[in-house]
C-alpha cells in the first residue's frame, strides 16, 4: 500500500511540476501577479509530495518490504537500521529520487525565503526549476520507478553492496546532491535573467548566496567521498580520477569560477555575460555528471548501446536544458549591457585570470573524461585516459592559478599596483622559500619538486594571512587601531582569506602524501614485526568476529615507536554471506595530522597473512583543507549582505553593498 501511495505522490508531483512551469511563466508573460505568485505555493506543494514519496521509500526500506523490487534488490532484513535507511539511495532508482527531492528542496527554499526577489524574477526562477523537476520526475516515473512491485516476493533481500554499508553512504550522496543539484538554482536564475533580458548587480547579489551554498555542499561532499574511498576501498588512494569523481569535480570547478565572477558582477557590474554563461555551464556539468554516472555509458559504450532507455532519456534531458540554455544565451546575451571598466592589472583582472584557468582546468577534466568514449564511438579505437594525463593537465593548470591566488585579493579594484602587491607579499614569499629550503635539506628521497610544492603551499597560506593583516594595517598602525580594523573586516573578507588558506592546507596535504609516504608490503605470521619509519608493527593476534550481517577475520597489530607502546591497530576482512562478497577494512590510526594505514590480504594455510602498511604524513590535511575551504564559504555566506536564510519582511531590502573594499 505504501508503495502505491508513494508512486501516486510522485505522479502528482509530476503534474505539479508541470503546473510550476506553466502557470508562473504564463503569468510573467501576461504580467499577471496572481498567476506569478502561484509559483511559491506550487513549489512548496511539490516539495511536500516528493518528500512524501521519499519518506514512503525510506519506510519501505526500514520495514524491509521485499515485495518492492528496489528494496528486495538492495536491502536485507539483518542489516542495521542505519544502513536500511541509507540503502534507500544506495541504488539507481533511490538516488534519482534523492536527486529530485533535493531539487524540490531548493525550489521550496527559493519559494520560502525568496521574498526579497522581484515577483517576475521569482516566478521565472521557479518555472525553470519546475521544468528541471518535471524532466527528472518523468525520468523516474517512466524508466526508474523505485516503487515497482515484485511478484512473487522473495523471503529475503539481496543485501546492500557491502562496500556501501558504511556511514559514508549516509553523508556523502546527500551532501554531493545538495551541491550539484543546488547549482540548478544558479541555472534557473541565469535563464530567468536571459528571458527577462535584464541583469544587474542586484541579480548577482541574489545568485551568489545560492551558488555559495551549493559550492559549500559540493566541497564537503567531494571531500567526504574522497575520505570514504580512502578508508573503505583498502588501498589508501584518495583520488583516482575516476569518471564518477570527475563528474563531481567538474561542477565544483565551474561553481568555483562562478563564485568568483559573480563577485566581479556584484561589486563592479562587469563580466555579466560571462557570469550568466558560467551559471548555465555549471549546472550543465552537473547534468553531464548525472548522465555519465546514471546511463551506464562509463562501463562501456556498448553496454550503453544495448540498454539505452535510461541513457537516452537522460541524454534528451541534458540536451534540452544545455542546448536550450545556450541557445537562449546566444540570442539574448548581446542585450545585456556591459558595465564597469577595469585595467588588466586589477582585482577584476585577477578574477578573470582565475576564471580562465578554472575553465581550462574544467575543460581538461571534461575532455579527458569524454575523449576515450568519443574516440571509441567514432573510430572504434580504444585508448585510456588515466591519472597521469589528469595529473599533468590539471596540475599544470592549477599551479599557476594557486600561485596567483594570494595576489588577487590584495589588488585594488579597477586598477591595481602589481609591484606594490608583490612587495606586500614579500614576507610570505620569503618564508615560503625558507620552508622549501628547510624541507629540501631535512628530507631525503621524495620527488625533487616536492619541497618547491611545499613552498607554494606555505606561500598560499601566508598570502591569505597577509590579506587579513593588510586589511588591518598591521605594522603600519597601532595595535588598537589594527584590532578595531580587524573587527571591521566583513565576514566575506574573512571568508575569502580562510577559503584561500584552505587551498594551501589541502595542497600541503597532497604534496606530503604524494612525496613522502612510506610503504611496507610484507607477509607476516603471529609475533612478526615490520618497521615503517620510526614505528614498528607486531602481529599480536588473529581473531574471528561476527557483525550483524557479516563475519570478520581481524588482525590486531601492536604499534611501538622507539620501543614505547602506542596502542593497537586492527585491519580486517569482512565476509558478507548474503552477497558472498568480502570487503577489506583498513586499520587507520591518526598521529597528529599523519596516519598509519594498514590493510590485510590473503591468509595462507600456514598462518601467514599478507599485509600492506603505509605511513602517510600530513594526509589528513587534504580533507581538513577542504573543510577549511567550506568554512570560509560558510563565513562568507553568513555575511549580512548575503544572508539568505534569515526570513525578512518583504518590504525590507538587503543593505546596500559596502563600497568596493
Amino acid at each position: 500500500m505504501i508503495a502505491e501511495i508513494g508512486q501516486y505522490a510522485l505522479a502528482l508531483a509530476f503534474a505539479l511540476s508541470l503546473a510550476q512551469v506553466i502557470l508562473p511563466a504564463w503569468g510573467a508573460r501576461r504580467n499577471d501577479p496572481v498567476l506569478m505568485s502561484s509559483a511559491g505555493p506550487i513549489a512548496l506543494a511539490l516539495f511536500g509530495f516528493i518528500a512524501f514519496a521519499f519518506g514512503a521509500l525510506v519506510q519501505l526500506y526500514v520495514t524491509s518490504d521485499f515485495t518492492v523490487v528496489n528494496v528486495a534488490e538492495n536491502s536485507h532484513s539483518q542489516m542495521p537500521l542505519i544502513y536500511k535507511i541509507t540503502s534507500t539511495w544506495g541504488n539507481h532508482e533511490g538516488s534519482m529520487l534523492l536527486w529530485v527531492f533535493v531539487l524540490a528542496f531548493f525550489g521550496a527554499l527559493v519559494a520560502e525565503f525568496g521574498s526579497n526577489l522581484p515577483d517576475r524574477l521569482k516566478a521565472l526562477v521557479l518555472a525553470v526549476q519546475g521544468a528541471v523537476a518535471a524532466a527528472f520526475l518523468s525520468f523516474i516515473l517512466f524508466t526508474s520507478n523505485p516503487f515497482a512491485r515484485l511478484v512473487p516476493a522473495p523471503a529475503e533481500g539481496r543485501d546492500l553492496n557491502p562496500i556501501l554499508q558504511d556511514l559514508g553512504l549516509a553523508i556523502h550522496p546527500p551532501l554531493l546532491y545538495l551541491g550539484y543539484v543546488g547549482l540548478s538554482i544558479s541555472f534557473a536564475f541565469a535563464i530567468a535573467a536571459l528571458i527577462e533580458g535584464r541583469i544587474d548587480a542586484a541579480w548577482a547579489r541574489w545568485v551568489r548566496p545560492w551558488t555559495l551554498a551549493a559550492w559549500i555542499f559540493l566541497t564537503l561532499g567531494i571531500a567526504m567521498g574522497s575520505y570514504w574511498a580512502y578508508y573503505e576501498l583498502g588501498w589508501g588512494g584518495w583520488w583516482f580520477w575516476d569518471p564518477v569523481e570527475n563528474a563531481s569535480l567538474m561542477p565544483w570547478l565551474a561553481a568555483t569560477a562562478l563564485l568568483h565572477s559573480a563577485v566581479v558582477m556584484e561589486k563592479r557590474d562587469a563580466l555579466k555575460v560571462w557570469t550568466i554563461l558560467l551559471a548555465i555551464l555549471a549546472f550543465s556539468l552537473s547534468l553531464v555528471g548525472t548522465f555519465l554516472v546514471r546511463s551506464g555509458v562509463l562501463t562501456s559504450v556498448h553496454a550503453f548501446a544495448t540498454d539505452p532507455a535510461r541513457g537516452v532519456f537522460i541524454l534528451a534531458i541534458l540536451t534540452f536544458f544545455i542546448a536550450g540554455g545556450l541557445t537562449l544565451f546566444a540570442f539574448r546575451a548581446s542585450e545585456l549591457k556591459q558595465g564597469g571598466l577595469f585595467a588588466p592589472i586589477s582585482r577584476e583582472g585577477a578574477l578573470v585570470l582565475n576564471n580562465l584557468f578554472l575553465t581550462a582546468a574544467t575543460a581538461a577534466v571534461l575532455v579527458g573524461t569524454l575523449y576515450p568514449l568519443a574516440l571509441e564511438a567514432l573510430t572504434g579505437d580504444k585508448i585510456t585516459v588515466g591519472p597521469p594525463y589528469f595529473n599533468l593537465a590539471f596540475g599544470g593548470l592549477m599551479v599557476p592559478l594557486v600561485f596567483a591566488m594570494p595576489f588577487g585579493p590584495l589588488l585594488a579594484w579597477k586598477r591595481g599596483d602589481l609591484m606594490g602587491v608583490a612587495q606586500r607579499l614579500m614576507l610570505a614569499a620569503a618564508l615560503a622559500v625558507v620552508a622549501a629550503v628547510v624541507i629540501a635539506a631535512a628530507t631525503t628521497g621524495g620527488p625533487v619538486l616536492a619541497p618547491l610544492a611545499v613552498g607554494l603551499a606555505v606561500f598560499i597560506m601566508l598570502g591569505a594571512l597577509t590579506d587579513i593583516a593588510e586589511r588591518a594595517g598591521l605594522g603600519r598602525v597601532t595595535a588598537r587601531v589594527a584590532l578595531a580594523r580587524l573587527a571591521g573586516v566583513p565576514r566575506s573578507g574573512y571568508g575569502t582569506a580562510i577559503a584561500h588558506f584552505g587551498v594551501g592546507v589541502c595542497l600541503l596535504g597532497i604534496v606530503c602524501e604524494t612525496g613522502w609516504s612510506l610503504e611496507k608490503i610484507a607477509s607476516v605470521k603471529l609475533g612478526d614485526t615490520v618497521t615503517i619509519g620510526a614505528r614498528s608493527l607486531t602481529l599480536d593476534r588473529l581473531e574471528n568476529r561476527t557483525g550483524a550481517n557479516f563475519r570478520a577475520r581481524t588482525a590486531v597489530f601492536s604499534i611501538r615507536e622507539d620501543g614505547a607502546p602506542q596502542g593497537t591497530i586492527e585491519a580486517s576482512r569482512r565476509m558478507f554471506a548474503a552477497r558472498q562478497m568480502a570487503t577489506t577494512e583498513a586499520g587507520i590510526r591518526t598521529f597528529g595530522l599523519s596516519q598509519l594505514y594498514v590493510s590485510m590480504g590473503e591468509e595462507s594455510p600456514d598462518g601467514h597473512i599478507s599485509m600492506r602498511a603505509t605511513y602517510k604524513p600530513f594526509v589528513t590535511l587534504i580533507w581538513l583543507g577542504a573543510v577549511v575551504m567550506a568554512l570560509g564559504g560558510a563565513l562568507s555566506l553568513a555575511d549580512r549582505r548575503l544572508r539568505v536564510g534569515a526570513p525578512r519582511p518583504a518590504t525590507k531590502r538587503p543593505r546596500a553593498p559596502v563600497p568596493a573594499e
Partner: protein
Amino acid sequence: MRRLLAALLLLASFALPALAVQPDEVLGDPVLESRARAISAELRCMVCQNQSIDDSDAPLAKDLRLIVRERLKAGDSDGQVMDFMVARYGEFVLLRPVMSWRNALLWAAPVLVLALGALAAFFGLKRRRAVAPQRLSADEEARFKKLLAEGEGPSPEGR
C-alpha cells in the same frame, strides 16, 4: 558513493579483495622494485574500471605486474617495458595516452581553451576600453558634487 559504485562493479567479478601488490611479488632490489611500481602505476588493468595494475587485485593485474618485473630483471629499460606492453596489449594499456595526431585534441584542449580564453578576454577588454566615456559631463559633475555633499549616496539598488 560514485567511486564506490564503480568499485562495486569490480568487486562483483572478483569476490575477494586483497592488497594489489602481494609480498611475494616484491623484488629484492629496491631500486628495481620502485621502478616496477612507477611503471605499474602507468599501466591499466584492462579488465577493471579505471585502475592501474598497481592498484588492482584482479588476477590479470597480478600477471601484468609479474611481467613488468620479469622484463626489468631481464635488463629492460622503463621505455622498453612500456613498448613491450603496448606491443602486446595495444595503446589501451597506457594510462597516459601517447601524444599522437589521434590524441591531438585531448592534449591540446586545455592549452587551447586557455589561449582562446586569454584572447577573448584581451580583445573584450580592449574593445570596451576604447568605447568607454572618459569624463563626466558637466551635468553629471554637478550632480556628483551634490551627492558627495549629501554624505551618503543613494542605494545602488536603484541602478
